[in-house]
């Protein structure tokens, strides 16, 4: 779910860059120096997964995005983490692009942060594996759906004619969101059972508004 290089006109790209800069600044302020390795390692793991894991879907397969997971694990630090990951993706694999880096960071990062507020504490307090699994599904589905909305929005803002792409990708996205949800659910369920400390991490990204 990237906006490809060249698609976004200056206005949309600039708006995206500004929003991303704000989010990243918040994320950086919340993250202390000694929390950098932890944030980086989670970002690395998610980056690797989104690159190499292929979840079978019919005759094809889909790559996971895992921004919901990034949100519940990293909180606001998900913003800089996605900026770094997306820059590397653009540089190494030509996904997305440099002028659309801002938009894409917003598209991936803001839903992640939303998931942090919506689910992180609930997952921490969940007692059973099943509950954590369901919350994980919810986080995966919510994040990717929000990302789709932001992606579609910025595409349509870039040109009304581009709406056709949104229309055509609606159905595939439904399938992708479903699989992403199940996948995120299993990961969150696993972490809740094996390493619940993983969800204590967002305390490191405490901003003043932290619940």
């Amino acid at each position: 779910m990237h906006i490809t290089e060249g698609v976004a006109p200056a206005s949309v790209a600039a708006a995206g860059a500004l929003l991303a800069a704000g989010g990243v600044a918040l994320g950086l302020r919340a993250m202390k120096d000694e929390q950098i390795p932890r944030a980086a390692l989670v970002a690395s793991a998610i980056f690797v997964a989104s690159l190499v894991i292929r979840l079978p879907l019919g005759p094809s397969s889909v790559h996971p995005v895992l921004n919901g997971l990034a949100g519940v694990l990293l909180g606001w630090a998900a913003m800089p983490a996605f900026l770094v990951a997306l820059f590397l993706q653009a540089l190494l694999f030509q996904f997305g692009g440099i002028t659309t880096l801002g938009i894409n960071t917003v598209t991936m990062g803001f839903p992640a942060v939303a998931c942090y507020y919506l689910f992180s504490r609930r997952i921490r307090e969940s007692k059973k594996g099943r509950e954590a699994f369901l919350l994980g599904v919810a986080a995966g589905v919510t994040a990717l759906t929000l990302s789709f909305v932001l992606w579609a929005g910025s595409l349509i803002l870039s040109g009304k004619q581009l709406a056709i792409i949104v229309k055509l990708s609606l159905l595939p996205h439904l399938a992708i969101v479903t699989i992403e949800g199940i996948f995120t659910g299993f990961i969150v369920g696993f972490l809740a059972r094996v390493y619940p400390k993983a969800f204590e991490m967002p305390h490191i990204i405490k901003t003043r508004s932290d619940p």
Partner: protein
Amino acid sequence: MSCTTHFSGHTVVHRLDPRPRVVATLVFAVLIALSGHYRVLCSGVAVGAFLAMLSKLPIRPLAKRLLRLNLFMVVLFLLIPTTSPGEPMFRLLSVPFSHDGVHLAAGITLKANAILLVFTSLLGTVELSSLGHAFHHLHMPAKLTHLFMFTLRYLDVLHHEYVTLLRTMKARAFRPAMSVHTYRTYGYLMGMLLVRSLVRSERIMAAMKCRGFRGEFHAYHHFHFHQRDAVFCLTSAIVLMLFAFVEWISGGVAR
């Protein structure tokens, strides 16, 4: 196997200081993104192609990247002109291709190719860690630079762990299929990878503390600015100003 390899080489481009390369790429990308005129966009592609040749980018990987990008552009060419309203420019198999649609798709294609070529030639040829150092010297926030460096440092380590885990799963007769069992298995695999990452991050923090880390990073790396870098700065400045000038005399930003 590495997932963090850059286009290494020994050309003059590779020897340039990464800092001006970062700046030039950014300004170029912004100018091209802003532009609405074919002569600017086409010159942009030409500049990109020139830099790609100058930095001797390997043909195969570059072609693969260009192909992937332009496959999407083909889709745009088929979709947008046929679905947008307006004067048809031409008909193909009696399907009208609208004037506006063709121009939009053409503009996007030229922009994407120009930026890709310059981005890959100038930044894709920098060792990634030097890129991090360049960001640092260009006053990017220190925390962001360090996040970048740490992420980069452990990509291959984690990729290796992923491959190892997947291998042991294959040895136990695992074959991916569209099933809950497969999704669960990958979920556990990813969960395990995350647990290992989190535990490793604690060990890294411990190693840092052992070497006197008390919550503050000190920079060490530095660059040398050579004459060739001055030449590059001057040339890029002239070319970029020329772009801006042509754009301006062509009558503002039209799309």
